[in-house]
C-alpha cells in the first residue's frame, strides 16, 4: 500500500510465490488478493488493521480475480474447479453460498460489480478473443458491451457508471481505453505497448495504471479526458496492478 504518489509504501503481504489482483473492500478495511503459496492459487481476505488473513477460496484449479460487491458482503471471483474451465461465480462471505454466473467453455474471468450491485461486468473470449460482457448479479444471460477492437479485457467501471476502463488492443499495442457503455464508443487514453490494470480514482477524473519503463514495471496516471499524463515515482522493484482506495478510507 502506498500514497497515490508512490510515497510511504508499506508492505502488507510478502511471499516468495506470486501475488496478484489486490482489491479493496468498499469500507477500505480489508483487501482481497490471490496468492500462489503452496504452488496453487487461492483467494485471501486480509484485514488491514490487524494483518489477520483468511483463505476464502482454495478449490481445485484456478481461484482468482476477487472483486467486492458494493455492500461488501460478496466476492465475485473466477473458479475453474475440476472441469478446468474458468467461470465467474459470486461467493456470499457470511453464508459461503457459491452462485455460478457463467457456464461456457470459454475463459470467463475478471469480474467487477456495477455500483448498484445488480450486474457484473467481466471478460470472456466466448466470441473468439477477449471482450467485455455484463451479466445480472444473480444470474441470467450475458450481453456483450465492448465492440471496438479485437481485444478488450479487465473492465473497471467509472464511478459515474456510464463508462468503463479496459485493456484494449490498439493496433498490436495493449493500452488503456475508455468505453462509453451506451454506444460502445472507445477512446484510447494511453500510448504504451504493455499498459494494463486500470483503476479509477474515487472522483472519476483520473485513472492509475501499470506501464513499462524499459523492462521495468512502473505506474502512471492519465486524466479521463486523455489530456494529462504523469508517471508516478515508484517503490523499489517492479510495480504492477494498482488499485485506488475507496473514497472513505477508514484506517
Amino acid at each position, binding site marked *: 500500500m502506498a500514497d*497515490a504518489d508512490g510515497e510511504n509504501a508499506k508492505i502488507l503481504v510478502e511471499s516468495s510465490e506470486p501475488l496478484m489482483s489486490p482489491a479493496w473492500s468498499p469500507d477500505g478495511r480489508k483487501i482481497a488478493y490471490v496468492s500462489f503459496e503452496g*504452488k496453487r492459487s487461492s483467494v485471501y481476505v486480509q484485514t488491514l488493521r490487524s494483518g489477520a488473513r483468511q483463505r476464502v477460496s482454495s478449490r481445485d484449479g484456478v481461484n482468482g480475480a476477487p472483486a467486492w460487491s458494493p455492500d461488501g458482503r460478496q466476492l465475485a471471483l473466477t473458479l475453474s474447479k475440476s472441469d478446468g474451465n474458468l467461470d465467474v461465480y459470486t461467493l456470499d462471505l457470511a453464508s459461503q453460498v457459491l452462485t455460478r454466473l457463467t457456464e461456457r467453455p470459454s*475463459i470467463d474471468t475478471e469480474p467487477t460489480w456495477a455500483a448498484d450491485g445488480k450486474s457484473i461486468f467481466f*471478460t470472456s473470449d466466448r466470441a473468439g478473443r477477449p471482450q467485455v460482457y455484463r451479466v445480472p448479479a444473480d444470474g441470467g444471460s450475458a450481453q456483450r458491451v465492448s465492440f471496438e477492437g479485437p*481485444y478488450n479485457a479487465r473492465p473497471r467501471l467509472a464511478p459515474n457508471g456510464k463508462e468503463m476502463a479496459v485493456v484494449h488492443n490498439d493496433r498490436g499495442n495493449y493500452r488503456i481505453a475508455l468505453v462509453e457503455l451506451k454506444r460502445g464508443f472507445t477512446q484510447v487514453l494511453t500510448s504504451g505497448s*504493455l499498459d*494494463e490494470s486500470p483503476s479509477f480514482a474515487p472522483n472519476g477524473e483520473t485513472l492509475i495504471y501499470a506501464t513499462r519503463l524499459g523492462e521495468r514495471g512502473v505506474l502512471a496516471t492519465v486524466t479521463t479526458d486523455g489530456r494529462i499524463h504523469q508517471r508516478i515515482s515508484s517503490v523499489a522493484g517492479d510495480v*504492477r496492478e*494498482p488499485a485506488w*482506495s475507496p473514497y472513505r478510507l477508514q484506517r
Partner: protein
Amino acid sequence: MDFSKSVLIVSVLGVLAGCGGSSGTAMDDGAAGSAAGDADGGPGASSSGMSDDGFGEGGAYGDDPGQTGGVLDSRVIYFGFDESEVDADSMKVVEAHGAYLAERPTATVRLEGHADERGSREYNIGLGERRSQSVRQILLLQGVTSTQLSTVSYGEERPAVLGSDDEALSLNRRVELVYAD
C-alpha cells in the same frame, strides 16, 4: 478534496520468480473457506529395476525420470500465440511422458501452465490453465490416471525469460512438467 489517496500495488523484488525474494508470509491463516485439496499421488515411487519400455530406471529421486538423454529430458511444451493445442512435435514428448507415467501408477507430475506477458493478467491465468488442461487431456488418453496429475496456471506471473521480443514471448508460452520429488 478530502479523500484518502492510497493505492494498493503489487511489487516484485528480484528478477525472475523463484529467485531469492522475501521469505514466507507473516500472518496466521484464519479459518479457511472450503479448501478442496489436490489429490496428489502418494510419495514418489522408488525405482524398481529395469523395465522393458526403453526408459531405463527412474531417476535417483522419486518419480523423476532424470536426465537420460532421451525424449523424457524434455519437460517444457511450447505454444503459439493464443494457442493451447499441442503441436505434432510436442505431442511426441507428451506421449512419452504419458507412457512413463502410465507404467508407474504412483508417480505424479504437476503441469504448470504459463502465458506471455501481453494483455491482462487474470485472462492470462486462463490461457495458462487452458494449456495445462490440453497437456493433461493427452496424458489421460495415454492411460495416466487423474490422481497422478495436478495443474496450476501462473499466467504471466512466472516468465522463463525476460524480454518483450518475439523470442522471449514464445519461450514464455509453455507448460512445464514438474515431477514430484
